């Protein structure tokens, strides 16, 4: 019984939040890794592209709500999502046409593309603040909980409860579907295979008749889909604020690098590693240990390794350790 209680506390405060956050990071990191693998540069505008995609979704959500269209128990934003992805694809392809294509044709060094993406980041940054302002927006509607703590306690009669929010459930389910679809696309379809070929060896791919502009276009389209989904899920689950999306850049890059840049599987693993590290290192283990350990061993202190203020420091630490000891990441991606 004691162990069960310990597990319930752990699930409520560590496992469920970390799995949700990990799914959001994984989707974001997949985008980073695809751009790095195929377009061969680190896209610093990634966090703010997420903000742009989410902004479009929020505007559409408001429009749907004003017309009285809702998704019942699910958030209206899910209905807006496909349309938001289409708009974001337009934005990213437009940006590529205006900015990145020029440097690609020049065969510019990756660092120049990175700097160009920094400029794009500032433009997106300003765009989102111009349209929605710098303030926080909550756009989740529908039912808040799949199961809430009081319901759980009433159902099971246990002293500790577990809450699963609708947005958490949606996040995990969506992430699984999106990842499965992506892997199917990359592994089974002709376009996916050509993208992988282009990523592995650009010259050979060109020789075998793959159209590079085509590959680039598909990459941006997939990335637009991934970031809009990641951004909307994060915004639904937490809240939307332009500055926090910009800050997400750090854990997302950390995830991609830890997993191995260019490796989709690595991006997913990296996302969960970062999320679980952030949550477990800053969590105070007192309550779990009090349940799990015999009474005489129960801790009197909080058993917290780092204050929650240092959440971002955890991403940094892992990043530094990985770069020092295994620069290609866990799944042997490209060296940074």
């Amino acid at each position, binding site marked *: 019984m004691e162990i069960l209680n310990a597990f319930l506390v752990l699930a409520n405060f560590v496992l469920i939040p970390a799995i949700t956050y990990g799914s959001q990071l994984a989707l974001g990191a997949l985008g980073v890794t695809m751009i790095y693998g195929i377009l061969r540069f680190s896209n610093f505008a990634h966090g703010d592209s997420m903000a742009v995609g989410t902004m479009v979704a929020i505007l559409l959500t408001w429009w749907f709500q004003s017309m009285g269209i809702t998704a019942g128990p699910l958030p209206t934003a899910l209905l807006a999502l496909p349309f938001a992805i289409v708009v974001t694809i337009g934005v990213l392809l437009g940006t590529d046409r205006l900015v990145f294509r020029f440097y690609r044709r020049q065969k510019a060094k990756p660092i120049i593309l990175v700097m160009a993406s920094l400029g794009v980041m500032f433009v997106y940054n300003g765009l989102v603040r111009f349209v929605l302002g710098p303030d926080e927006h909550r756009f989740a509607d529908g039912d808040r909980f799949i199961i809430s703590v009081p319901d759980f306690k009433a159902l099971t009669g246990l002293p500790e409860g577990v809450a699963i929010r609708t947005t958490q459930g949606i996040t995990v389910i969506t992430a699984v579907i999106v990842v499965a679809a992506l892997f199917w696309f990359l592994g089974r379809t002709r376009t996916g295979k050509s993208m992988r070929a282009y990523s592995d060896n650009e010259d050979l791919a060109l020789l075998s008749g793959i159209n590079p502009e085509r590959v680039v276009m598909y990459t941006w389209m997939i990335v637009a889909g991934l970031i809009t989904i990641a951004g909307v899920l994060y915004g639904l689950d937490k809240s939307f604020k332009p500055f926090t999306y910009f800050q997400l850049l750090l854990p997302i890059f950390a995830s991609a690098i830890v997993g191995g840049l260019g490796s989709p599987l690595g991006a997913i693993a990296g996302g969960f590693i970062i999320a679980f590290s952030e949550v477990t290192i800053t969590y105070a283990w007192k*309550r779990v240990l009090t349940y799990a350990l015999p009474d005489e061993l129960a801790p009197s202190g909080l058993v917290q390794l780092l204050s929650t203020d240092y959440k971002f420091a955890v991403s940094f630490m892992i990043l530094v350790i990985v770069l020092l000891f295994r620069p290609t990441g866990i799944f042997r991606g490209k060296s940074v």
Partner: protein
Amino acid sequence: MKKLIATTAATALFAGAAHAEEIKIGVLLGFTGPIESTVAHMAPAAHLAIKEVSDSGLLLDGATVVGVDGDTTCIDSSAATAAAERLITSDRVKGIVGGDCSGVTGAVLNNVAVPNGVVMISPSATSPALSHKNNEDEGLFFRTAPSDARQGVVMAEILMEEGIEEVAVTYTNNDYGKGLADSFEASFKEMGGTVTMSAAHEDGKADYSAEVSSLASAGGERLVVAGYVDQGGAGIVRSALDSGAFETFHFPDGMMSNALVENFGDEINGSTGQHPSPTEELVERFSEVAEASGGDWDPTTPFTPESYDAAALILLAMQAAGSSDPSDYKEKIMDVANAPGEEIQAGELAKGLEILADGGEIDYVGGTGVELIDPGEAAGLFRQVLIKDGENTTVQFR
């Protein structure tokens, strides 16, 4: 410096000797700067008290009183010091209503008021750093607004009376939050309570689940949220409710607004809180007095009745001491503000002056129910709030 004090004293002496003198009172507030919109109501309130006394003709055998404005800018200490310097040395004010913001008030007090021996009563500086426990201010500084440290004590009292003995505390990571959390923790422990954890939170984050997880692990019957209702404080409450970490909360003034019940409503039933606020009768009476004066300012603006009270206290203390010399009347300020004596409401300053002239005692109530505690600051009236059926309800004033 000695010379300066001697000169000031001599001037005061000469002035005191003359009949029907003209007494000048400095009104040193932030007429420009970040709180200029509030000062637009505070300053007229101070002038109203001055005019009321002057018009009565009862102060010190018919002395007239004039208010002289000085600008603190709220943030620029050198500008505030210069303004105070001018008020004291060139206008020769006998007392100062001000300053307003805590930083400039401390600068003016240390650099100008104490060296020159002039009384300052601030209507709005609330920093605990301004409590001069060891008489560093030479008994010259008072305030009609309660120190933030006082709220910590009141908060601990409320929770103790509710029978809550174990709480977790989270505060917004700035001077306000930290000061309040520290003073609460100190007094709560003194009363025998336990603070399981006192953790800061940053405002403006999207997600507070990590903070709440730690607080939940530390445990406690109630979560004290010393934050802002339109910032991280609301995020903490949302996350604590969602994860079932805490069911009831305690909210200090930064959280106490309509936005709280609008956001959370029934979900936070049973939670408690407090914020500084005069009772309704006091507010009503002060509004009537303000209206009768025909001014176009809003008497319900924060710190506005405090400004009226600050000016009134200076003048009543002068009457009690029979002198407009700050070194004489500074001793009397606590006497006129506190019991025993006849209660003097806002708008009854003439009555107070009369009683004092006849050698009687008064207990000045004024616009905020002034009660000064050591070292010369308002105990403050706090409205104790209970959230019931998704509504803010008043339990009592303390």
